Each structure stands twice: as C-alpha cells, then as structure tokens.
C-alpha cells in the first residue's frame, strides 16, 4: 500500500519549472509523464544516459562477425565453388550480406532491449492515473514512500508549483 500524489500542467515549460522547484525542496519525484518528449526534462531529472546505443553496437558487432564468418565458412569449407573465376575467400562479396545482418541485429536487439527495459510489451497493463497524459497533460507523480515529508505536505508542495488537479490515491503496490 502506498500513497501517490499527482498533478498536471498544460504546458511543458511550466512542468520544467515545477520539477526544478520540487527538486530544490529535496522532494523525490517518482515519475513524470508527458504526451511527447520534453526538451530539457532529461537533464533536469538527471536521468542517466540510456545504454541502448551500446546494446545496438554490441549486437551489430555480433551480427557482423557471425554473418561474415558464416559466409566465409560456406565458401571455403561448406560448399566451395568457383564462380566467375573468383577466389574461394571472396571477401568483397561477403560485405553486402554482412552489412545487412549487422543492421538487422543492431536494430532488433535495441528494440527488444528498449521494450524489456521499459517493461512494455504485448499484454502490458500500465498504471494510468490520468488518461489525458497522452493528449495534453504533463503529469508529475510523487510517492509518499520515497519522501520524508507527509502526504499533505507533498500535496501542498505540488500545488504550490502551480499544478492542477492535485490528487492523492492509494495504490495496491
């Protein structure tokens, strides 16, 4: 059982201002939800830079090595044939296939990593508090569990920043 306090804004600069004020007061913000990625929000929330690009790189390297060595093996060991007078290890010919598989691996590994890391997927049930977030509400969510202040104090602080419709809700988790 924990109490969630949340409110929303109708403009992204108001949101940024509010987040800064709350952080100055030392209040820990559980989540911020917006209809689109807000410029500057990542920096203000001090979100760590995503590791997804690294995932893409590693997967790409794996794909490249696998595909290249596979083609090489096929042409030197598996079924060596002479085509157009080319040598068995016709490296130039292997480049297009290697490139395509590299991109495929990198893209899909990153996509899957994104979904897994964010807990999104077919069948995910999200904890939506305000349905208008995906429309035009910029929402700040505070959790009483993460903060030393009481629920009322948190609600007051949130209202002081100019948030609209500040509500408290008890959730099961």
């Amino acid at each position, binding site marked *: 059982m924990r109490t969630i306090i949340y409110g929303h804004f109708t403009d992204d600069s108001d949101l940024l201002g509010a987040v800064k004020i709350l952080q100055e007061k030392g209040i820990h913000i559980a989540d911020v939800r917006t209809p689109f990625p807000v410029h500057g929000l990542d920096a203000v929330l001090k979100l760590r830079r995503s590791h997804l690009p690294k995932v893409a*790189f590693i997967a790409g390297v794996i794909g490249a090595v696998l595909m290249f060595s596979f083609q090489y093996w096929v042409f030197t060991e598996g079924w060596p044939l002479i085509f157009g007078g080319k040598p068995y290890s016709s490296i*130039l010919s292997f480049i297009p296939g290697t490139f395509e598989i590299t991109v495929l691996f990198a893209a899909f590994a990153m996509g899957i990593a994104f979904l897994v890391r964010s807990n999104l997927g077919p069948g995910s049930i999200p904890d939506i508090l305000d349905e208008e977030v995906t429309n035009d509400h910029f929402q700040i969510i505070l959790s009483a569990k993460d903060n030393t202040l009481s629920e009322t104090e948190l609600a007051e602080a949130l209202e002081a920043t100019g948030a609209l419709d500040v509500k408290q809700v008890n959730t099961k988790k």
Partner: protein
Amino acid sequence: MEKQNIPEPVPFKFGKILKTYLGIAAGIGLLVLLIAIFVQQLPSARIWANLWMNALMFLFLGLGALFFWTVNTLGESTWQINFQRVMESMGITIPFAAIFFVLAFPGLKDIFEWTHTGNLDRVLQEKTPYLNMPFWMVRFAVYFILWSFFAWYLRKISVKNDFEPHEKYLGRLRATSGWFIVFFAISSSTAAWDWLMSIDAHWFSTLCGWYIFSGMFVAAIAVIILITIAFKKFNILPNVNKEHLHDLGKYLFGFSIFWAYLWLSQYLLIWYSNIPEETVYYVERVNNYKTLFYMNLIVNFVVPFFALMTRGSKRQPLYLAIVSLVVLLGHYLDLYLAIMPGAVGREAASIGLLEIGLPFFYLAVFLTLFFISFEKAKPVPENHPYAIESSSYENI
C-alpha cells in the same frame, strides 16, 4: 541548455606571429621542392605530378567549402551561420588555385599520356574529340572563371547584408547558390574526368566524378572543423559551441562512410565483372601500391567510423581536431593513389621528402589567402534573420 558565459569575441588580426609561421611553412615547402629538383634530381614526372596533386588539394578545400555553404544556404538551414564566414573565406581561395594549376602546365605532357598526339594508340585516338589540349584548356578556363565568379559574388552579397540588411539579399544568396550547385554538379564531374580520370586515359568509370567529389567534400569538412575549432579556442568565434562541433563531426562521420561506400561501389563492381579494360586500374594499385591502397581505406573509413561513432567523441574539440587532421591526410593519400600510378609509375613513385614537405607551401598560401579574406569582414554575419537559430539549438 547549459548557461555558459560566452566570452567576448576577439577581433581577428592577421598579425606578425601568424605571418611568420606561415612564412616558415612556405619556406619549408619551397626548400623541399628545390632539393627535389636540384639535389635529389627526381624524375620530372614525379615533380610535376606532385605540383599537380597539391594544386588539386588546394582547390578541393575551397571548392568543397563553397559547396557546403551553398547547399546549406539553398536548403535554408541555419546552424552553420555561426561559422559561415570560415566557409566563405575558404571559397575565396578558388581563383588562386588556378595559378597553381597553370604553374603545373609545363608538366602536363608528363602527367597525361593523351597529350602525346604524335603516337596515340587506337583507344586514345578515339578519345581525341574530348581529350585534346584546346578543348581541355577551354574547359579549364570555364571551370575557374565560373567557380571564381560564384565564390566572389556569394561572398559579396553575404557581406553586403551586414551593412545594408535587406530580405532581397537572402533571396539572392539562395538563388545564386542554386545556380552554383547546378554548375558545380556538372563541372565537378567533368573536371574530375579532365584532371584525374584521364591520367589513366585507357580506363573509365562513370562513378569517378562522384567519388572524387566525396573525397573533396570530406577534406573540406575536415579543414572547416580544424579552422573553426582553432577560432573557437582563441575566442574569435566564441558563439561556436559544442552543438556546432557535434554537427560538423556528424558530417565528417557520415560522409566518410559515404566516401567508403563509393570506394566500395567502384572497386566491387570492377572486381566482380573482371573486365580487363577496367581492372587494369585496380590491378596496378593492389599489386604495386598494396600498403598504401589498404591504408587509404583504413585512414579514410575505419578510423573516422570507429573514432566518431559515439556522441561524446564529436563534442570534444581536441579529439575531433585530431581525427579531422588524420582524415585530411587520408584524403591526400587518396589523391596520391589517383594520380601517381598513372602519372609516374611504380619505379619512380614513392612517399618521400617531396610528398611530405611540398604541401606545407600550399597550406601556407591557402591559409594566408584565407586569413586575409577573413580579416576583411565581420567574423559572423550580422543582421541575418536566421542568426538566432544558430546559437540556440541542441542535439539530443
């Protein structure tokens, strides 16, 4: 956006210290040339080919910068405004490149075998309607007259807007950029055929023009980066921030990949079809210049690809400058491989004192002309309606 204190701009002065350094560099280059002629007594083909190669590199930097500026102008992009004047002044060096070409004219008979009109074989005989001196010279003149005109006129309008700002100047810059780009698209290819492809006159490749262009473009970007970073460091362009460097780094990264893509396209297709008329070009290079041939690919593709892949790498001035320098040298090597095998031949060609030292002279002249031009105008265009965009954008 990080609120930094942007220092006051330091007005640029082409002062004594700078002139001294450039004078020394020019001196080194000339000395090396004299040594090559009188002391080492290198074969004349090699000396002329070096003069030719340096003249081309000199031209490519200015021409590539002019192209980059005009493309951005025509596309109404604005991020480049804070360092636009660097490109403008690089473009102004184009007419002077013509002088270096003319100085190399006595060597044309050494570099181009189609000039020996007395004993042409059947293949070269067929090409004489295009590869003949008079027509070649006319083309040479047309390229330089028009390129120089565009470089001069665009610069004039850009500076005029500083003093009498008017919407019509922006329109004129856009329109003129359009004309230049059309002419450039055609002339960059035909000039590449005239000045590089015809060195190996028995060979041909429809991609040659675009391939040379891609190398020219990357080399120009590398020099733009180096100059911009230097100016930023000395507060001549304090409004150039990491975002600009990041974008320039992206261009260096992306177009190095594009260059490699064209390199591979040409090589793969000629290798695959294995037609002797075409393969002679690569057989010569892979057999007799093997190390340089593969080094070309490593320096111009592998290095920028891995070195500039991460976000951070493109935002650190010193690191970006080093990679740019490496890539610039790499494209010089690319030019070497395009010229030397055909013009000089295996026995005479090598990387020696001349190849390494002579560029200093051309570099000194290039920078001298650049600095003189840059000093004459404001470091950043004033009264430009899009200027605020250049100082206020962020990369993800």
